[in-house]
């Protein structure tokens, strides 16, 4: 295998308020049965990558529970597979800070892997990018580093926090900027040869750098041949409650749904043994995603129900996201709401959020 993967969660903030009180962003449930990290792992395994490391820093219990030994992605192999690499808190020889430290503390992962190239990615950019295509582009252009970007039609608030690429006509990256009005959104993914990556890590450590991409690649575009790869498929960025809500509901667009889930590149996740969803007499469901194990007797409209949600008689759910095993009892009303896992809404309650600013209820609340 030519490429090994690093899913670098070091720089991702806990951007989803209540949803990230107890878990890191990568472990946030998304699209009815997945977690954000599933998309990047599935893209990696689809490209034939068999060595994948996750750099995780904080609140990684639920992430580890989800990933396990990587069985769901066929990464439970005798050699290679999935490596969850939490930070080394007490390394006395460690002189760097930031994610560069994480790379440096895990040099063994890179040395032991047989691949010649490394693909580094975050978890917030939902896409179905084909990394084999990126690899071919990398070889063809003779790049030192290939960074992946999406040319978005319209800049949305969530893109404000993303970095942008300034490129030459030939596709070489001239600058990575924080510019607000540039449509070339950098997707937090890059491909680099292992040899160069290790050199850059050593160089960065020696020169007191902290952030691997910013300090060793983005600021060195004059010295390195950094090429841009344009991704053209379905795309969302999840880096705030608003963008989480908006991009979740975007999946209810049938074209988006088909392109995200029914391309050859299947999204894999940890499976649960839930029976098929049960629609009882009187249920009214429209324009919604429904996970297995749900029992629906009420009304569900423009919403996403994760697995095992119970919607009792007379309950109405509109424009909402309801996570695993929530129990919505008789005659309760939900509108523009995100319910985290295991929330119980007792009889006759009304929760109504704002379209722009959904109401978020944390895990295990009884209301």
């Amino acid at each position, binding site marked *: 295998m030519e490429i090994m993967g690093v899913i670098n969660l070091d720089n991702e903030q806990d951007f989803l308020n209540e949803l990230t009180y107890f878990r890191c962003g990568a472990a946030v449930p998304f*699209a*009815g*049965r997945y977690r954000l990290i599933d998309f990047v792992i599935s893209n990696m395994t689809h490209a034939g990558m068999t060595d994948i490391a996750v750099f995780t820093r904080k609140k990684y219990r639920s992430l580890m529970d989800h990933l396990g030994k990587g069985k*769901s992605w066929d990464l439970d192999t005798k050699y290679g597979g999935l490596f969850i690499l939490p930070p080394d808190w007490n390394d006395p020889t460690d002189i760097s800070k930031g994610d560069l430290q994480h790379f440096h503390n895990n040099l063994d992962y890179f040395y032991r892997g047989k691949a010649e190239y490394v693909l580094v990615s975050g978890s917030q950019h939902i896409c179905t990018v084909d990394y084999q295509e990126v690899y071919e582009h990398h070889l063809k252009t003779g790049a030192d580093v290939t960074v992946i970007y999406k040319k978005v039609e319209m800049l949305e608030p969530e893109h404000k926090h993303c970095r942008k690429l300034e490129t030459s006509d030939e596709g070489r990256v001239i600058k990575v900027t924080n510019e607000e009005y540039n449509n070339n959104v950098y997707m937090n993914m890059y491909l680099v040869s292992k040899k160069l990556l290790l050199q850059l890590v050593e160089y960065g450590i020696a020169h007191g750098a902290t952030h691997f991409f910013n300090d060793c690649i983005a600021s060195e575009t004059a010295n390195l041949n950094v090429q841009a790869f344009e991704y053209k498929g379905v795309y969302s960025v999840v880096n705030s409650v608003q963008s989480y809500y908006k991009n979740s509901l975007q999946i*209810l667009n*049938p074209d988006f*749904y*088909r392109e*995200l*889930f*029914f391309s050859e590149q*299947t*999204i*894999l*996740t940890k*499976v*649960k*043994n839930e*029976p*098929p*969803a*049960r*629609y*009882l*007499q*009187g*249920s*009214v*469901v*429209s*324009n*919604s*995603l*429904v*996970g*297995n*194990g749900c*029992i629906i*007797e009420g009304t569900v409209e423009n919403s*996403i*129900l*994760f697995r095992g949600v119970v919607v009792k008689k007379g309950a109405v759910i509109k424009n909402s996201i309801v996570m695993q095993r929530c129990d919505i009892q008789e005659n309760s009303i939900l509108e523009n709401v995100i319910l985290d896992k295991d929330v119980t809404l007792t009889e006759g309650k009304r929760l109504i959020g704002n379209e722009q600013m959904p109401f978020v209820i944390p895990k295990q609340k009884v209301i």
Partner: protein
Amino acid sequence: MNRKKECVAMLLAGGEGKRLELLTKNLAKPAVYFGGKYRIIDFPLSNCTNSGIDTVGVLTQYQPLVLNSYIGIGSAWSLDRKHGGVTVLPPFQAQNGGDWYKGTADAIYQNINFIEQYNPKYVLILSGDHIYKMNYAKMLKHHKQKEADVTISVIEVPWEEASRFGILNTTDDLRIHTFDEKPANPQSNLASMGIYIFNWELLKSYLIEDAQNPHSSHDFGKNVLPTLLQDGKRLYAYQFEGYWKDVGTVESLWEANMDLLENEPQFNLNESGWRMYSVNPNQPPQYISSRATVSQSLINEGCLVDGNIDHSILFYGVQIGEGSMVKDSVIMPNVKVGKNVVIEKAIIGENTVIEDGAIIRAKVGDERDIVLIGENSRIMAEEDTVQTKVH
């Protein structure tokens, strides 16, 4: 020395299931789909896991490919164990010849060596064509309490139907004194479920004896059990209460599926304490469009519903086009239904394509009112008529 297992389960899964017609053309009966995501064999295998029985031999014979690849190493049921787990046991040839399994008892006889590896005290015999939830550990406890040689699980059936079953006549203490195979005038309504627990040493000696008898048809019900009874062995009945259904015919398969659609079904798949395991395909959540209506139905992951579903079951990956109506039907995996199709009281085999405007329902005068369409078919609407042609 081999580590001892208290109880080894032997699951008879080689049956052809002729009465399921098209559904078993390319696969054995235990591999037939049921309940929106399961195959029939999931039920006995899940019962084993939930009952703490971690060593299961699955005896296969007829069309084993799908069944073998489905069972795999048993990880779906947590039966991928280092000592024990699931083992698929097809018929084989040895130096002195070999043969297909001639009957249920012969199938076990030919696998004595498999059972001996675990040196068990008890052997549990199961069949792969029933839908039920049963705690075999409770049955084993009953077997021990009665100091039985054999325990047969029974279920009370309605008296008027008793003459269709193998009926066991017992004392008040549940000790079996006679068998009646499909009796005209039943003396009891306790029907055998085809689930047996034997003391292994005893069973082994009877199997060896039975194998040498040229007049035997090597069947548990016909030969081995009556012989044991004649010899005065201690045969006991274990009474099972709950939902149990033999899904050996198209009618009973359809009925058992429909039973799941009650608001309070007798057979509840959502019970968290007794989970039914199966091989889970990785599919996105189902999408119900704004034009769709769904009522009293079971729908699995990966379905795209744009039409109207009433009192039906959709397996994974089924697509239903705009304006189509599915009623009282079972649609197996990856079936594509076009626009303005009507499907009523039908079972549609996997990967079938039903083109726009087709109408699938039994015609007046048909022998049976359930329409059965096999896998990988293509159904077209004939011009200007409601007749449909099956290809």
